[in-house]
């Protein structure tokens, strides 16, 4: 391992300065459950790790009437142990409670899961179906990126040298909104998705006003499927949901690897899309 410095930043500007100083040889550190492994394995050759979890903005966890702000360094447990937030965001809890085991969830957060940009990241698709906007700070100022545009390839994202993810913002779910995430893994926990799907729906009575379906582990990045658009304006019936699940399956472009074959993954996406849409509709009806 290349010896690196540890910089504990206490403000956004301090973090940007430290990251910019070392360019591509510096990375932000939040939970460390990916960053330290990458550094130790020599996958990243670093001069500095910049600890961003002592910055007030990255720790924000604020549920407003119209917007939810989730700091980039907030660990998973703070999402699911907060009674109010877990009641309003069961779809986020689906993800936050299956990323690693209890030790990982003490440190790792949805922000780091996103920045790690793994195609199989269990949190990313949930963020996509909650219409999340990413707030990125850097030497040129602050910019916002829609989460579905954040990942650009396996392990790659729009984050440039000197930049880091500060927080994520998403609309606070209103009456008639529901979301869910499910994955397929050989074990019940502590495993990486063979395939995963997150779905969300906004209902008005029995009509789906809008929907989002996002797919994990079936392409080089998490995929925002066209299945959601297909459901807009339609009734939340079993037939319409099945048809959308077929579309989601068609939007998958998986590879065959040690976790599963392309054929199995394509099939799984169809099953998981149907189940998560059904669950999202159920939650939307409970939330009426």
């Amino acid at each position, binding site marked *: *391992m290349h*010896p*690196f*410095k*540890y910089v*504990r930043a206490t403000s956004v500007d301090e973090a940007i300065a430290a990251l910019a100083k070392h360019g591509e040889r510096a990375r932000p*550190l939040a*939970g*460390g*459950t990916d960053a*330290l*492994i990458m*550094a*130790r*394995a020599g996958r990243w050759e670093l001069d500095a*790790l910049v*600890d961003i979890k002592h910055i007030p903005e990255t720790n924000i966890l604020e549920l407003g009437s119209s917007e939810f702000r989730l700091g980039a360094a907030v*660990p998973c*447990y703070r999402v699911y142990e907060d009674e109010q937030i877990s009641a309003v965001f069961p779809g986020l809890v689906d993800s936050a409670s299956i990323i*690693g*085991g*209890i*030790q*990982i969830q*003490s*440190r790792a957060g949805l922000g780091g899961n996103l920045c790690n940009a793994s195609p199989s990241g269990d949190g990313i698709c949930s963020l996509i179906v909650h219409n999340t906007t990413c707030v990125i700070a850097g030497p040129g100022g602050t910019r916002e990126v829609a989460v579905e545009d954040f990942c650009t390839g396996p392990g790659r994202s729009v984050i440039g040298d000197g930049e880091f993810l500060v927080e994520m913002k998403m609309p606070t779910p209103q009456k008639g909104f529901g979301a869910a995430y499910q994955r397929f893994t050989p074990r*019940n*926990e*502590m495993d990486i998705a063979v395939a995963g799907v997150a779905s969300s729906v906004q209902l008005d009575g029995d009509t789906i006003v809008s929907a989002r379906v996002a797919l994990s582990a079936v392409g080089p990045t998490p995929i925002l499927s066209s299945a959601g658009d297909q459901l807009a304006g339609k009734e939340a019936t079993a037939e319409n949901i099945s048809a959308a699940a077929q579309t989601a399956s068609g939007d998958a472009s998986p590879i065959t690897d040690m976790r599963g074959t392309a054929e199995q993954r394509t099939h799984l996406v169809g099953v998981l899309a149907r189940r998560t849409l059904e669950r999202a509709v159920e939650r939307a009806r409970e939330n009426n």
Partner: protein
Amino acid sequence: MVEKVRVRATLNGEPVDFLVAPYVSLLDTLRDELGLTGTKEGCNDGNCGACTVNLDGRVVDSCCVLGAEIDGSTVETIEGMAEPGQLHPLQQSFLEEAALQCGICTPGFLMSAKALLDKEPHPSEERIRFWLAGNLCRCTGYDKIVKAVQKVAK
């Protein structure tokens, strides 16, 4: 050459003040710098939980934490689980139930189980199994470990 950093923390109830290279994990800091070898290295990549310690009230894999990160924090390791010369009820139960064979995973299981019982004194078997999912054991088949925890949780 990267300079060592100064770290001040509370370790098993005692203040500690030491220097550590900034890229060294908390696991290696405990074992090599502070002489606390009760915390074990298993996978060294956040999968097996052998290196589980309690950091500011939460169990973490100490291989996924830098020693430098604990500045200002409170850390508890297996060495602080019971008073010297005594056993914590979980340690006693692990012995009585033969919940270990090679023993490498045991400190991690004990730290995780203690955190659960401190939070929820009477968890269900399912809750115990899910809570301990981040701790791997290749000897016991888990049943004896779960039974040992259940015995204390009654």
